[in-house]
C-alpha cells in the first residue's frame, strides 16, 4: 500500500486560508499570509502541534457586560465554546473537539447538566488527536454519555442496549457492518456495571463502576467467547476488521466534501492501523492531501460560519444571542439533533439559511452606519469596494459581484431625485451590501 498522496501545488495565502477554514474557523487578519510562509508541511505541523493554549483577545461577556456562566445559564455553554473557537491559538484542537462532539453526539436535552456536558467537551480537547481507543474508553465512562445512552441504567439484572448498539452503529463500525443483534445484546452485557445516584437539588451525581452490577458471565461478541468487561467491549469494537474503514471514511468527511478515492482510503486505513489507531497521523495526512486543496468547496457548518465572521472582524463575544441564533441556523452546540450528530451534507435549507441571515445581521449590528450621520459615496462601484474592504477583500464570483452592483445601482437610482435621499440611501446601501456579502454563497463556503 503506497503512502497517502500529498498536495504538490503551490501553498499561498489562498491555500492557507482554505486550510484554516477546514482545520479551524477561518483566518484572523493576516493569519493566512503568516501560515502560508511556513509552507504546507510546516503549516500542518503548526496546527497539529500547537503547544499550550492561549486565548487571544477580549474575554467573553454577556450583553450586560457580565462574565459568562457556562455551567449554569442557558445558552452560555454555546457562547463559551464559540469564544474558544474565536480566540484560541489552537484552532485544530477546537475543530477536532467539534468533530468529536458530532461523532459522539451527546445532547444536553437528555443529560440535563451543562457542567457534565462541558466536562465531556474537555475530554474531546484532551484526547482529540490521540489514540482512538483511549478516546472511546473515556467516552464510554463519561457521565454525560452514561446518562445520554443509559449506560448507568445498564445492570446485569436489567440490561439496556442503548449504548452497546450506538457504539457499534455510530461510533466504531457503521450500521450493518459486521455485527448482529446478538452482538448488541452481548455487548450490552459486557458494558454492565456503571451507575450513579440521584440527589435532590444536585441531580445525577457520584458516577462510578460497581462490580456488583456487572454481568461476569461469559459473552459471545463477534464470535469470540469470554468473560468480557466494558474495556473489552471497547477493545473488541476498535479492533474489529471493519473499524478502520469506518473511521477513515467518517473522519475524512469532516474535512473534504467528497469521499476519498479507493487508493487514498486504503492508504489512510493502513496509516491508521500502523499508528496504533492514532488520530493525529490520519488528520495530518488528510490536511496534506491534494483533495483538500484541489477539490470542491465545503459548506461551512453554522458555528464555523459564525466564528469565522467574528474572527474576520475581530469582534469578541459580547452577547449570548449566538446560542439561539445558532439554533436557527441548525447548530446549537451541546444540542445535536440526535446521537448521530448533525447531517453535514445538509446544513442548508430555507429555514437554516434564514438563520445564517440572522447570524450575519447580528454580527454586523455594532458596525451599522447611521444614515442620519455617516457619509458614504453616492457611487455603486465605490460602495461595493468599501463593503468588500470591510470584509477584508473576500474573493467573489462575477455573478455575485454583478448581483451586488445591480442592487446598489438600483437602490441609488431610487434616490436620484431627492438630495436628502441620496445621502441616506448611500449609507443604507453600504449597510445592506455588507449583509448581502456575508450571506453570499462564497462566504458560506470555503
Amino acid at each position, binding site marked *: 500500500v503506497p503512502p497517502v498522496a500529498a498536495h504538490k501545488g503551490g501553498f499561498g495565502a489562498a491555500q492557507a486560508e482554505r486550510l484554516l477554514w477546514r482545520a479551524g474557523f477561518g483566518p484572523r487578519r493576516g493569519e493566512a499570509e503568516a501560515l502560508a510562509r511556513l509552507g504546507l508541511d510546516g503549516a500542518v505541523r503548526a496546527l497539529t502541534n500547537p503547544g499550550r493554549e492561549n486565548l487571544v483577545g477580549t474575554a467573553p461577556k454577556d450583553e450586560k457586560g457580565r462574565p459568562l456562566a457556562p455551567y449554569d445559564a442557558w445558552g452560555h455553554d454555546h457562547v463559551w465554546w464559540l469564544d474558544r473557537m474565536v480566540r484560541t491559538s489552537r484552532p485544530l484542537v477546537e475543530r477536532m473537539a467539534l468533530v468529536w462532539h458530532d461523532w459522539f453526539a451527546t445532547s444536553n436535552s437528555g443529560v440535563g447538566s451543562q457542567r457534565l456536558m462541558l466536562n465531556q467537551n474537555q475530554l474531546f480537547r484532551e484526547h482529540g488527536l490521540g489514540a482512538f481507543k483511549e478516546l472511546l474508553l473515556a467516552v464510554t465512562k463519561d457521565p454525560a454519555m452514561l446518562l445520554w445512552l443509559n449506560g448507568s441504567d445498564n445492570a446485569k439484572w436489567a440490561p439496556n442496549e442503548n449504548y452497546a448498539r450506538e457504539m457499534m452503529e455510530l461510533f466504531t463500525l457503521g450500521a450493518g457492518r459486521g455485527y448482529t443483534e446478538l452482538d448488541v445484546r452481548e455487548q450490552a452485557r459486557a458494558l454492565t456495571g456503571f451507575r450513579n445516584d440521584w440527589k435532590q437539588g444536585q441531580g445525577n451525581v457520584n458516577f462510578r463502576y460497581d462490580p456488583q452490577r456487572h454481568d461476569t458471565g461469559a459473552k459471545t461478541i463477534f464470535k469470540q467467547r469470554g468473560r468480557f468487561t466494558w474495556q473489552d467491549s471497547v477493545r473488541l469494537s476498535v479492533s474489529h476488521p471493519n473499524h478502520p474503514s469506518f473511521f477513515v471514511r467518517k473522519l475524512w468527511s469532516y474535512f473534504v466534501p467528497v469521499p476519498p478515492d479507493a487508493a487514498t482510503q486504503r492508504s489512510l486505513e493502513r496509516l491508521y492501523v500502523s499508528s496504533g489507531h492514532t488520530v493525529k497521523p490520519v488528520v495530518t495526512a488528510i490536511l496534506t492531501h491534494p483533495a483538500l486543496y484541489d477539490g470542491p468547496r465545503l*459548506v461551512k457548518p453554522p458555528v464555523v460560519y459564525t466564528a469565522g465572521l467574528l474572527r474576520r472582524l475581530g469582534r469578541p463575544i459580547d452577547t449570548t444571542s449566538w446560542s439561539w441564533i445558532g439554533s436557527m441556523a441548525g447548530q446549537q452546540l451541546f444540542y445535536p439533533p440526535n446521537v448521530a450528530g448533525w447531517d453535514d451534507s445538509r446544513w442548508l435549507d430555507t429555514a437554516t439559511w434564514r438563520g445564517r441571515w440572522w447570524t450575519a445581521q447580528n454580527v454586523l449590528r455594532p458596525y451599522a452606519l447611521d444614515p442620519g450621520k455617516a457619509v458614504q459615496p453616492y457611487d455603486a462601484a465605490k460602495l461595493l469596494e468599501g463593503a468588500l474592504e470591510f470584509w477584508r477583500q473576500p474573493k467573489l464570483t462575477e455573478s455575485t459581484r454583478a448581483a451586488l452592483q445591480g442592487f446598489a445601482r438600483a437602490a441609488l437610482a431610487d434616490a436620484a431625485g431627492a438630495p436628502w435621499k441620496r445621502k441616506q440611501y448611500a449609507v443604507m446601501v453600504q449597510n445592506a451590501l455588507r449583509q448581502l456579502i456575508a450571506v453570499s*454563497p462564497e462566504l458560506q463556503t470555503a
Partner: protein
Amino acid sequence: MSGCNHCAGLTRSRLLHRAAAEAGRGLPAIEHGMPLPAGTGLTRRSFLAQGLGAALAVYGGSKLGFAALEDGIALAAGGPAQPVLVSVFLEGGADALSVLSPQGDPLYRKLRPKLALSGGAVFAEDDRLRWHPAANGIAQLYGEKKVTVMPAVGYTNADQSHFTSRHYWEVGATSANLRTGWLGRYLDRVGSMDNPLQGLSLDSTLAPALATAKVPVASIDGPDEYDFWSNRVWGEVETRMLAAIGALGTTHGDPALAAVANVTAQVDRLRNQLLPFHGQDDKPAYTSPVQYPSANESFPRRLAGLAAMLAAGLPLRVVALTAPGEYDTHSDQPGELSEGLQLTADSLLAFQRDLEARGIADRVLIHVWSEFGRRAGENGSNGTDHGAGGIGFLIGARAKGTMIGEFPGLKTGLDDDGNVKATSDFRGVYAALLEQWLGTDAGAVIPDAAAFGRPALVR
C-alpha cells in the same frame, strides 16, 4: 432522561406541485366527492383578501410590487383544490403496547410488570386493547369513524437502528441507498419547478421524506415567521436588498457554491409567496376558529398556521411535521410518553376540528407514524428497548376508519427477539395512500410496489 432523542429537527421541504388538472387525474373516486376548493379563481382571491384582509392589504400595499409575489398569489388562487397529505412523525419509536395497551392479553402484565397500564377506553375493533388516556384526542376521533388504526405496522426483519429504520420509512423501501423520500418522488412526478410550497416541512429543517430529485420544496417554522431585515436598512433600500437575495441565487460551477445558491433561490421564492401571511406587531395574520392546546408550543401553533394556509388556498400537497415528545423511552417511560402523546393527540384533534370548521376537512388526511415499536418485555430502567411492529394512524374525515392489520397477540405474535411482529407493511400503506388518496401510480414511486397488498384507506 431518555436515551437518544433522535432527530428532533429533520425537516425541510422542497418540492413542487403542479396544477390541479394533474392532481385530479387518476383520482376519480376521490374527485367525485371532493368539496369545491376554498374558492377558485377570483373567488379564492377574494377569499384570501377577506380572510387575511388587513395583513394582505398592508403588506400588499407596500411590497406587492414584486412580480414573484403576484405569481405566488395567482398560483395559490388559480388551481382546483388538491388532496393534502400531512405526515406526522413520532420520533424515536413509539411504544404501540402503551398507546393501545393489550390489557386483555394474559401475557401483558408478565412482560410489563412495572409498566403495564390499567384502564382507558376500550378499542372498539379489538376489546383486548385499550387507549392510552393521553391519546384521548385520537380516541375521540376514532369514535367518530375518522381514524384508521394500524396496531402493528412495519416490515419483516425490522431493523432496530433508529436511523436505518426511519430511513426505510422515509424513502419508502428497505433500501439504505435511496436518497429521495417517498413523498419527494411523488412530488417529482406531479410537481412543478417554481412552487416550493407544494412540499412543506413545518419545522426548522427538511423532512427527509420530502427530499426530491428535481423540484423545490420548503421548510418553515410557521407561515407567520419568515421575515428578513438588517441593521439600519429601511424602506425602498430594504425592499431592494431583499429582492437582491434572489440575484445571489444564480448558478455556479462549484457544487458547494451551487448548493448554497440553490437554497438562496428557494428562500427568495418562499419569502415572496409568504409575504401575505406576515402579520403586524408579531401577531399572526390569521385567526383560528377553534382553540388549540398550549399556544406556546410549536406543534399546535404550526398546525393552526397550516390550517390557515390550506384555507387560504396556498398550493400545498404534502406537509411534514415532527410530533412533540420523547418516544425513545429507554427509561422513565410512563411520564415521558404521556407528556408528548397528550400534546400530540390534543393538537391533532384541534387541527381536525379547525379543518371541519373551515369546511376543508375532506381535503386533508393525516398519517401518523414512527420508525418502529418497542420490545414487548420491559427493560430494567422503567423503560423499553427498540422493537419491531409499531403504531400508526390515518386521521381525517375521509379515513376509512377500519383497522389495517391486527394486534397479533403476545403469545404467538412476537418474533425471536421478543418484538411484536408487523401485521401490515408500511410500503403497502404508502402505495395505498398514493393510489387512493394522492391519485398517482404507486409503481412509479415505491420500489417493487406490486409486491405489497393495498389496504383500503379512504372512503
